[in-house]
């Protein structure tokens, strides 16, 4: 029995460590800032970070398949502006939302196509994608566009009570993010697409020779990331009720940092979505601590995320070394 526990710890070490860091960190912060002990403050993490979570989920898939998607934050910004502008033009909001998703999916798939078929570095393609999306956002509008549409307003303010926590609530879009999160866990573990993604991330050549659909999977992975980004964009515009090309200026980096903190290896093939959730929560906790403190300057967020990322990489390396020793 003990052996099995030990094995479990070793196999899931990084994930457990991420969770541990979050729990302990949040607990300590709660002792320092008693306000953080309120359940609502905890659930605010899901409200404030719904978009980041969505982006990070897509990013996790991309990173597992040994790619990178730098266009996610720009796609988010483009989605906010595009939907705000369309709403201004009196397009039906229920048409806009699917339209935005289609835009995200097709743009992601297009990027995936260039990466897979034309063999251009993912890094470069999605970087260009990022420039392109932000540029398009600025072309649509240089300034912030407010959303006055009643449907968006009511959706954006739609509270969902957390059962068992009294008046504690999250917003509807947080629930959507959680649903996507659960779906992503299922996809990664229980579908051929998900497992192929892991196989490609480890060794594309092998995956191809195993007869797995490498091209289709990779293109789909980027399409999924595009889907998550545009969904994140819809969530973002619901939360802020406006659209602006400058929104989320470095969120792709936050997403990558969350993915890394969650134990996903940037070399591909190893990782999972659950870890990513906790990576996002850690990120969110740092931000809320800064808000509660008030005297700490905002740049400590950046330094904090940087230091934590370094810490997590160290932990990953330790576990990998441990794993190797065990195997030999």
């Amino acid at each position, binding site marked *: 029995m003990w052996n099995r526990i030990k094995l479990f710890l070793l196999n899931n070490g990084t994930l457990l460590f991420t969770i541990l860091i979050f729990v302990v960190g949040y607990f300590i912060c709660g002792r320092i800032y008693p306000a953080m002990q309120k359940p609502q403050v905890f659930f605010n993490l899901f409200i404030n970070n719904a978009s980041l979570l969505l982006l990070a989920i897509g990013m996790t898939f991309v990173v597992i398949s040994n790619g990178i998607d730098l266009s996610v934050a720009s796609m988010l910004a483009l989605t906010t502006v595009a939907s705000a502008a369309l709403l201004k033009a009196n397009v039906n909001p229920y048409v806009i939302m699917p339209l935005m998703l289609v835009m995200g999916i097709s743009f992601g798939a297009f990027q995936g196509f260039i990466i897979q078929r034309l063999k251009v570095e993912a890094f470069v393609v999605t970087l260009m994608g990022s420039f392109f999306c932000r540029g398009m956002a600025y072309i649509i509008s240089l300034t912030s566009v407010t959303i006055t549409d009643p449907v968006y307003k009511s959706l954006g303010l739609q509270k969902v009570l957390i059962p068992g926590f009294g008046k504690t609530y999250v917003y509807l879009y947080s629930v959507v993010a959680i649903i996507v999160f659960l779906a992503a866990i299922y996809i990664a573990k229980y579908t*051929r697409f998900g497992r192929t993604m*892991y196989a490609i991330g480890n060794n594309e050549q*092998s995956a191809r020779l195993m007869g797995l659909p490498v091209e289709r999977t990779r293109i789909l992975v980027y399409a999924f990331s595009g889907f998550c980004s545009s969904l994140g964009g819809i969530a973002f515009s619901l939360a802020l009720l406006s659209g602006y090309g400058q929104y989320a200026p470095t969120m792709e980096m936050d997403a990558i940092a969350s993915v890394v903190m969650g134990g996903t290896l940037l070399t591909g093939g190893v990782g999972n979505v659950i870890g990513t959730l906790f990576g996002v929560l850690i990120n969110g906790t740092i931000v809320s601590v800064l808000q509660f403190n008030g005297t700490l300057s905002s740049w400590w967020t950046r330094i904090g995320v940087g230091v934590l990322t370094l810490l997590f990489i160290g932990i990953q390396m330790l576990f990998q070394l441990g794993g190797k020793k065990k195997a030999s």
Partner: protein
Amino acid sequence: MMETPYILSAKGITKTFPGVQALENVDFSLKRGEVHALMGENGAGKSTLIKCLTGVEQPDKGTIEFDGAAVVVHSPQHAQEIGIATVYQEVNLCTNISVAENVMLGHEPKGVLGNISWKKMNEQAAQSLSKLGVAIDVTKPLGIYSVAIQQMVAITRALEFQSAKVLILDEPTSSLDAHETKQLFDVMRKLKSEGIGIVFITHFLDQVYEVTDRITVLRNGRYVGTFETSSLPRVKLIANMLGRSVSDLDDLSRSKQKVTKVEAGQAVLETKEMGKANYLEPTDLCLQKNEVVGLAGLLGSGRTELANLIFGIETPDTGELLINGKKVTSFSPLDSLKNGIALCPEDRKAAGIVGDLTIRENIILALQARYGWFKFIPLQKQYEIADRYIKLLGIVTPSPDQLTKNLSGGNQQKVILARWLATDPQVLILDEPTRGIDVGAKTEIQKLVLDLAGQGKSCIFISSELEEVLRCSHRVMVLRDHKLVAEFGEEVDDQTIMHTMAGDL
């Protein structure tokens, strides 16, 4: 219409790569229930032919008939769908996912929701593996198992879930030990009796004669012929592969006698109880001037490990290493280089050549490393050095500015040799210098080793081919299970060594 006995036949296959005629009008036919060896030197076109049969490459000309019908194989996936499965030397599976997934992925059992049923998958995978006599925990990532196990997993995948009618084994035995090889042959015979056609590619002649029914020989991209194994003498086979006589081999035994007798004196290199935990047991080795010491042992017996410790790839944690009687205190390739030790590593592609550098740059690399960052060898001098060694070692190339990756295996090996000879080492460690290179180049390299010993250098010669070790070495040391187990003089025979390696004595 009578069913043809051939499951797979290719006619007139021609394939040209930029600048190279890889295959020219090659025929190949495989019967049901036979093991068919595909033989040829490196560059003969074996792998290109396999690639054409499995859809990795498209032939420029020629037809492929499978199961009595003409087919065009579009992709590896398509090949598997119609029933042609391939297992490569470097196992092409994914090491990060579980064994079960590696066996089943693409044919995974589904649950009610269309989800992967992990329970069923693990059960089925374990069951199929047990058919080949492999009992392992299928939920573990494949990467933690040995290459032999990985190969069995690959074969299981090919057979069980692609209902393969043709199985292509591309040098499957080169990283297997004797026992594992036997296990593989048992599996091959079993499959043969089930009517599966097997294409078997190997460099080991013994294995060809042990397990195959027919042999097809290719040479320089051309079809030489197909023979019944039982009626083709070995000499004839080699002659066919080389397209020349094998008398070259005779020269060698003569050249060995030319080597001056080794005189006992100050050892050039000596290890005293040198070892490293979980890597190599404490080992004593002594190397004299002019001497060639052969290291024999199975893969993983500790021979490469010993070489790596001496060369400073790994740092020993017990014992000491003496060079010319002086104790070595810091271990790194650079230190070894300065101490006059050179290592031609086992894995030529990954640890030897720098493929995208030119031959000249590859040759001067170690010398330049010794000179350091700021004492740059002038270009003209570089060319002089490169030209000298290209001539000396007979490296076949139009110019020293060719990229090394474009050379054949044997020539690449010579480039690595040149790189080290340019540093004028006292001790040359050759780890499998002749693996995967053609017989002609093999002989030349063996000759060179003996010449070097004659010129006052010392060599440690590591090889899986006993015959070769015996031919080149003054003494043979045998390793087993990370331990030095025996030492023999020049007069030992291969039977004795083989038994020592296997641990029967």
